[in-house]
């Protein structure tokens, strides 16, 4: 990579890596930017890797479905680790996830024990989002001049 043209010519995808641990036999659905990368019963600790476009917002969701509270109250998905390009998002940024579930539980967590969707929507491309929420200071925008 010798210059700007070469650096911007690289087709960079952001790499999402996660480690999910089932408790019981949860039914899980995992979506990243509209692609379902897993759907079904999780029987063992699962390591997932996925590449996605860096220039669009990252929307990642994990859904727990079909849990019957009266029968399997110990069923859950635990997100032990979630990294994007080796940047730790879980546990460091767990509070950035929105958890909509049938028990109205809203506290930051990576223990998904209720039927519902645990979701991260960066709203902007990942690196701008990361800049803002990791205390990197100013993120300036170019403003054309009008001195004349």
């Amino acid at each position: 990579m010798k210059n700007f043209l070469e650096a911007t010519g690289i087709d960079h995808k952001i790499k999402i890596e996660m480690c999910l641990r089932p408790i019981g036999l949860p039914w899980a659905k995992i979506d990243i930017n509209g692609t379902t990368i897993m759907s079904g019963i999780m029987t063992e600790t699962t390591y997932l890797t996925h590449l996605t476009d860096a220039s669009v917002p990252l929307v990642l969701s994990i859904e727990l479905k079909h849990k019957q509270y009266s029968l399997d109250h110990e069923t859950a998905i635990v997100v032990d680790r979630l990294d994007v390009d080796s940047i730790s998002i879980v546990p460091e940024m767990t509070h950035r996830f929105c958890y909509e579930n049938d028990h109205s539980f809203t506290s930051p967590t990576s223990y998904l024990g209720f039927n519902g969707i645990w979701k991260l929507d960066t709203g902007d491309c990942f690196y701008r989002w990361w800049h803002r929420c990791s205390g990197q200071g100013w993120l300036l925008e170019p403003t054309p001049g009008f001195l004349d």
Partner: protein
Amino acid sequence: MFDRVFCSGPWLHMRINPTGEFGPCRWSSHRDEQYNIKTHSVKEYFQKRMAPLRRSVLEGDRLEMCSQCYQMEEHDKVSGRQRQLLKTGIMTDHFVPSLQSSTFRSAFQYSQNNDGDTDLLPIDWQIDLGNYCNSACVMCSPRYSSKLGAEFKKIGLIDDTARWNSSWSDDDTLLEKFCHDLASGPTPAYLHFLGGETLIIPAFKKILSELAQAKMTSPTVGFTTNLTVWPQDTIDQLLKFDRLNIGLSIESLHDINHYVRWPGPQEIILQNLEKWIDLADRHGHPVQLRLTPSALTILHVADLYQYAWDRNIGVETCNFITNPRCLGLKVLPHDLRSTAISRLEKFLDGKIIEDRQIVNTRNPSMVNQQVIQDARSYINFLRSSEYDQEGAHELVQYIRQLERSRGNNILDYLPEYEKFLRSHGY
């Protein structure tokens, strides 16, 4: 490698030097003698004159004018280049993807397609108001200190001070033009003022007043003071701005500060240091100790790192000093370097050190790690930089000339330097 040299500064930042010449960067001593606020417009300089610089930066050229930043990065010190990149969303440890996501990517692309031109204007300013100063710090120069200039003339180090003393900001017409340009361009994000002693330069108060009158109080105002004065009226003006970056120049809590930042009264400096920290705390503004570690102070900087650590305030040291050469750390012999290193290591002892580099040194939650990071960069430099024997000779000649004028003696402050200085003719 492109990621080691690219900088976003030329798309957002420029500088005006004490005598009015424009320059492209606050971390570089490069200035354009032919481009002065008296003769050229900000727009002309930034958009056209800086185009070849932008072109070189986009081509990945390694530039002599950027050597200070390259040197800082070699020793794990956060460079100006890294700070400017971060302001546009580019992280050096994730360079390619963050460049591709940068808020300035389209601006870089425009310059790539238009031979370095840009339609932008600076939003990050370094404004050197002039050299009017009440201190004559040994590592300074007549360009930045009228008092040192007068002394240099008296002892024959320079012939004349006139060229340094003609500060652009003394000219009301130029000042008005500059304020007008600021008010009629895009709202700046950052205005950093430097003197001389910023707080006693009349133009500082005038610019603050003009901006406040124009209801332009959103830019962050940064400034550095030598802590010798407390001008309440100027401070009241400053407090009208939404956010201040307060830089407090001091070299040590040890008496060597008095020798180096001559003739600053140490008692008043320490009082004002506490007052500024208290004011910053009450108003929620970040404050940083601004150090220029040199051959004469490096033995006693650890106490300031400890002070900053204890008070949870940042430390921002300048480039590794190369001008004057004789005050650079390279002139120190092995035994003094070892002493300095062991004192810095004693400061670090028992503290948790994170590996991750902190580029945003004003992040309040990372202040302590930032202080550690800065101290470590000096250990790295002291360990790895080559010895400059010629500079050591120059040091002795230089301080003897100053001491004849000042009537002081370095060994009263640094008795541990006797062997070193005597061996070079002191």
